[in-house]
């Protein structure tokens, strides 16, 4: 059964902003989120009071939620979402915001995510991430996400024949993409040799498979196209979006995500097919997940990911441009902003204002999010197709 959602009615994404990432910070999540909002207001040349909808994601905002944050920054939104879905938060915020705008519950929704990173933040977050993780994962070596994704990575290699070179090729290509991005934390060229010789972290995961936890924030505005035109804002159109939580619970170990359940709905809603997509912003916390997204979003069949990797270059100007800002692997992972990174980069590419190099023919971008390894697998998956302001693709090309 295909769950057909109503198409989006002229919903656009505008004003992509990034509060530059830093490895560690003594500032709070409140600071980073507030700066993201300030940049949105500045970038869109609007007043704070023009923002009547707000969606917030953060791991380190505790003890506050989005509610406390409204008082902290003196905002009185009539639509408010707290989206604690890790790397899927951006897609979910976008979906919620789009429908709220369509329904008239808000005119302009600010979607922001950010986290601080104190010196001990990562350990504390890993230790108390979820009940299942605390009961049944953390006491087994306290490897955090590295340990959990190592199990998925090793399994995928064994069953589908991926090699360290396949994973490495993605990491090297993304670093290549980051070289022109002034906001990337890592802008030193990475060779496959360096990738392969880097120290093991949790076998088979090596150093450069891991994202660097850091502090930072990202944000974007969701509104109707008419509003964007009135405000004279460059924007990308939202064609389709999906989300799924706890997809495939009966798989003994994760080798696919919820995208596989929902991709038909995604492409149907957008009226396009995978071959129409000009670039992919995948959730790249860890390369094995990028491979799963490439498969599950229909760019190749299940298990064909390694072969697909060997066929493409993944650089911004090459074939199948992937994570064109360098992704989290090169930008860093600012906590819950990890998924926003893909959305803001996709919008920047589609409006012709990328941080780094421009994808040659950027008309359709696919952004994918993934989050919350609650126990043995990531539970939240989401994806969105965004289009450049020009004409819409014809329906029925699948």
């Amino acid at each position, binding site marked *: 059964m295909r769950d057909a959602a109503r198409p989006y009615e002229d919903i656009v994404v505008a004003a992509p902003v990034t509060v530059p990432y830093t490895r560690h910070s003594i500032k709070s999540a409140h600071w980073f989120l507030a700066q993201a909002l300030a940049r949105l207001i500045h970038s869109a040349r609007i007043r704070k009071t023009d923002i009547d909808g707000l969606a917030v994601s953060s791991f380190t905002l505790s003890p506050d939620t989005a509610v406390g944050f409204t008082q902290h920054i003196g905002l009185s939104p009539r639509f408010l979402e707290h989206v604690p879905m890790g790397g899927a938060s951006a897609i979910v915020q976008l979906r919620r915001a789009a429908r709220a705008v369509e329904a008239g519950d808000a005119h302009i929704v600010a979607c922001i995510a950010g986290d601080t990173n104190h010196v001990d933040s990562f350990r504390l977050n890993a230790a108390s991430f979820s*009940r299942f993780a605390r*009961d049944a994962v953390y006491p087994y070596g306290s490897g955090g996400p590295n340990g959990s994704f190592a199990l998925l990575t090793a399994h995928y290699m064994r069953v589908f024949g991926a090699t360290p070179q396949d994973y490495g090729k993605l990491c090297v290509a993304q670093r290549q993409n980051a070289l022109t991005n002034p906001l990337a934390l890592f802008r030193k060229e990475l060779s496959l040799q360096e990738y392969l010789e880097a120290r093991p972290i949790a076998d088979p995961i090596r150093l450069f498979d891991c994202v660097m936890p850091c502090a930072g924030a990202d944000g974007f505005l969701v509104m109707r196209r008419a509003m964007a035109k009135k405000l004279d804002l460059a924007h990308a159109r939202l064609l389709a979006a999906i989300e799924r939580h706890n997809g495939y619970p009966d798989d003994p170990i994760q080798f696919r995500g919820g995208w596989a359940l929902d991709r038909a709905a995604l492409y149907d809603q957008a009226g396009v097919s995978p071959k129409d997509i000009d670039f992919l912003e995948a959730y790249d916390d860890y390369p094995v997940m990028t491979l799963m997204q490439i498969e599950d979003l229909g760019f190749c069949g299940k298990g064909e990911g390694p072969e697909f990797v060997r066929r493409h270059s993944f650089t911004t100007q090459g074939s199948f441009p992937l994570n064109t800002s360098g992704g989290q692997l090169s930008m860093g992972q600012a906590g819950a902003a990890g998924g926003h990174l893909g959305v803001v980069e996709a919008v920047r590419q589609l409006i012709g204002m990328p941080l780094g190099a421009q994808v040659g023919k950027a008309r359709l971008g696919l952004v994918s999010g993934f989050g919350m390894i609650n126990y043995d697998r990531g539970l939240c998956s989401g994806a969105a197709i965004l289009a450049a302001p020009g004409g819409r693709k014809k329906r029925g090309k699948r």
Partner: protein
Amino acid sequence: MLALDAPVVPPSARSRAAQGLTAAAALGIFALQRCEDCGAVQYPPRDACVECLSARLRWRAMERGGELLSETLIRHGQELYFRRRAPYRAGLVRLDVGPSTIVALHRACEGAPSRLRLRLALDKAGQALLIGLPEKDVPDMADDPIIRETTCAPRARKVLITDVKTRVGRAMAEALVAAGAEIVWAGFAAPWKPSPHLEALRALGPVTPVPLDVTDESSVRELAGGIGGKVDILINTAEHHRPGAIASRNGIETARAEMEVNFFGLLRLAQAFSAALKARAADGQASSTAWVNLLSARALSNDPAHGTFSASMAAAFSLAQALRADLQASGIRVLNVFPGPIEDEWNALVPPPKLSPEALARTVVDALERGLEDVYPGEVAKDLIARFLENPKALERELAG
């Protein structure tokens, strides 16, 4: 600043449901939650059935076989405990009974895909840990780091038995020597007096009699000052037991004497020895590791035919829980042993089956080697704990006769 050898234990926070796993591990049982309504086996522990949402989840002994689907070697754990023990081998196992589990892997396990069996053990924090073992035992199974961390085998360790005057104490010494203990200090109120028992124990080799009277605080302190810093395992066998209904005697002298040994004796030992044990809990391979209390199944519910003895053992049990709470933070296991009636003169009027001191001693060594926390040796003890857990009020009435 943290001393280099300060004991560091693994993370101990768990949900209340997950404590069911700990309860099973304390007894050496492999148990998981099963839904009473639809039969689905659950893991990680839940508060509602993952299939039918029923709240009727019960802990049941389970088949422990499974398939290793994937493994990793964690070289940089977030916690200090694991950093000191890196690399840590972990695996993802699909159990034959259904759920997927993350486990610590014994080094003898083959790579994925492979068959293995799981064991539920207690880690250094006293919390449940799933361990993947090879399907068949291999030589030196117990030398694996994860087995050493979750057990308290007496082999090559220094053990203090607080009282070897009794048959249980002597059997304990013999069993420890047989299990490969390096030194067995045998507590004896007056070891300088000629005693055929002591001569027999001395002849075992590693046994060294030491003066100890648990009713005498200075005796306890003196011994702790001498060997406290070397004891790896302390086994409290000191016991005073006089049968009889509480109305069968006048006065409280007998009851006081029982409390003096069974309760205050344990308290004196705890005050004198626990600090030294805790200090050496992280001493690498030769660390202090366990404290054993020989209590009685009569501690669970009073046996009126042994009224004051039961009461003194209930008091000792309660104190042992306080001791466990104190030692657990350092990674020292407190093993509480609840035997049924033992073959001794104080149980002469109790009908069989009774527990021989030798069988009791073997059970204690086995429990140490398996890293258990609560043991009910013998048929009577097993019967009592089952009846107690099912309906404590019924047991109270039944023991009233």
